């Protein structure tokens, strides 16, 4: 319950990088993977992220729970794309090599399969990196890193507050929910949908009204300590950059540059092997 973000503390070079570095790398990396549909680059990103995973000493077992969610999401998304737009690949790549006719407009073409391959690769190129970030970055350091990369400290502090109060609110929700259930509210499938939403509100209202009081208490305490008076603020969890941090950020920047260059060279976001 306390470790919802699955931070795993292990001695590894990736853990030793500062949170700010990892955040910058995550952003650059995900922009690179977002920008390109070049299969060659996506494959290299996916392979590289697996190597990094190895370096971080995080095992597959540590993240299997999160991988499960992602796998379901990925399969569903691919199915939906095919059901809704079986000719999307043909439109994108401008040619049509029919492999199998399923009836109606659902014709499997090489182009469509290639598009799906790219879609899957896009997941494979980003998800390991996100998991790596989540597993190797201490949540407490996360807010400090946000401030480090230029987010205003007041907003970074909001994130810190959110992370700090998630377990509290979760516990409170649980308590209220059990109290209300003892009084007879029903939230399972036996009730109609509108009834279920209404009974959810019977839990939410006390939860949120008490959270409003919490906001008052916390903001009064912060104001009494002079929060927001100065332009800058120091962080307990902040760390200095080392040469590895600089190298990691440069490496990620190069990946993004590669993605942009390939887009220019391919004359678009897609690498077309069919011509």
């Amino acid at each position: 319950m306390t470790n919802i973000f699955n931070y795993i503390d292990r001695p590894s070079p990736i853990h030793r990088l500062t949170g700010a570095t990892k955040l910058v790398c995550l952003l650059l990396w995900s922009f690179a993977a977002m920008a390109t549909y070049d299969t060659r680059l996506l494959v290299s990103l996916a392979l590289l992220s697996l190597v990094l995973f190895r370096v971080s000493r995080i095992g597959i077992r540590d993240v299997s729970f999160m991988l499960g969610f992602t796998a379901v999401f990925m399969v569903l998304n691919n199915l939906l794309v095919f059901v809704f737009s079986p000719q999307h690949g043909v439109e994108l790549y401008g040619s049509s090599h029919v492999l199998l006719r399923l009836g109606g407009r659902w014709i499997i073409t090489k182009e469509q399969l290639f598009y799906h391959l790219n879609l899957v690769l896009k997941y494979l190129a980003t998800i390991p990196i996100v998991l790596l970030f989540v597993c190797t970055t201490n949540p407490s350091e996360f807010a400090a890193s946000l401030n480090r990369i230029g987010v205003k400290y007041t907003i970074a502090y909001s994130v810190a507050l959110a992370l700090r109060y998630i377990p509290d609110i979760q516990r409170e929700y649980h308590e209220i929910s059990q109290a209300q259930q003892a009084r007879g509210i029903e939230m399972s499938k036996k009730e109609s949908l509108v009834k279920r939403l209404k009974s959810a509100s019977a839990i939410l209202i006390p939860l949120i009204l008490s959270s409003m009081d919490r906001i008052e208490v916390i903001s009064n305490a912060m104001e009494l300590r002079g929060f927001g008076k100065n332009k800058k603020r120091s962080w307990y969890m902040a760390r200095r950059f080392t040469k590895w941090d600089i190298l990691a950020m440069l490496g990620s920047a190069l990946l993004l540059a590669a993605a942009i260059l390939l887009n220019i060279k391919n004359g678009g976001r897609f690498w077309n092997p069919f011509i």
Partner: protein
Amino acid sequence: MKKSPVRTIVAIGIGAALFFVLGRFVAIPSPVPNTNISLQYGLLAFMAAIYGPIAGCLIGLIGHALIDFSYGWGIWWSWVIASACFGFLIGLVAKRVNLADGEFGKKDILRFNLFQLVSHVIAWGLIAPVLDIVIYAEPANKVFVQGLVGGIANIVTTAIVGTLLCVAYAAAKPKKGSLKEEK
């Protein structure tokens, strides 16, 4: 009520934490298998109506990004941004609805729901699908249907949960001018 900047910061933090808990752990099974009804947009509309557009925008942004991180599928940027936009748009109502003064009558309910409808339509019918197409190059009809389904579900939950929250909050606040000087 004068709002201090510190209060807004705290409201963003607590709001994002609530958004996270509702979105991640409070799942009401819906008739469609494997689909849960998300209550967090009702909360987001309510918080934005009290603390304004900036708070709404950041609660949506931080809360949704944290949910995506905890599931591990990275940041689904297009939908995170749509959440943030919804929070921002609905926050613009704050000027019209005087929740802090303990007033939330029939007219306000109507106005609140009209605004949430329009904001949801813009966020899920326009921003999310267009970003899906621009960022992920997904087929247009698929993302628009997805946005439509999600949008309708969010409109219904916001209408029920958001309105109930606003009514309950207004009832808990003393009405403006409810105290009279004794003579």
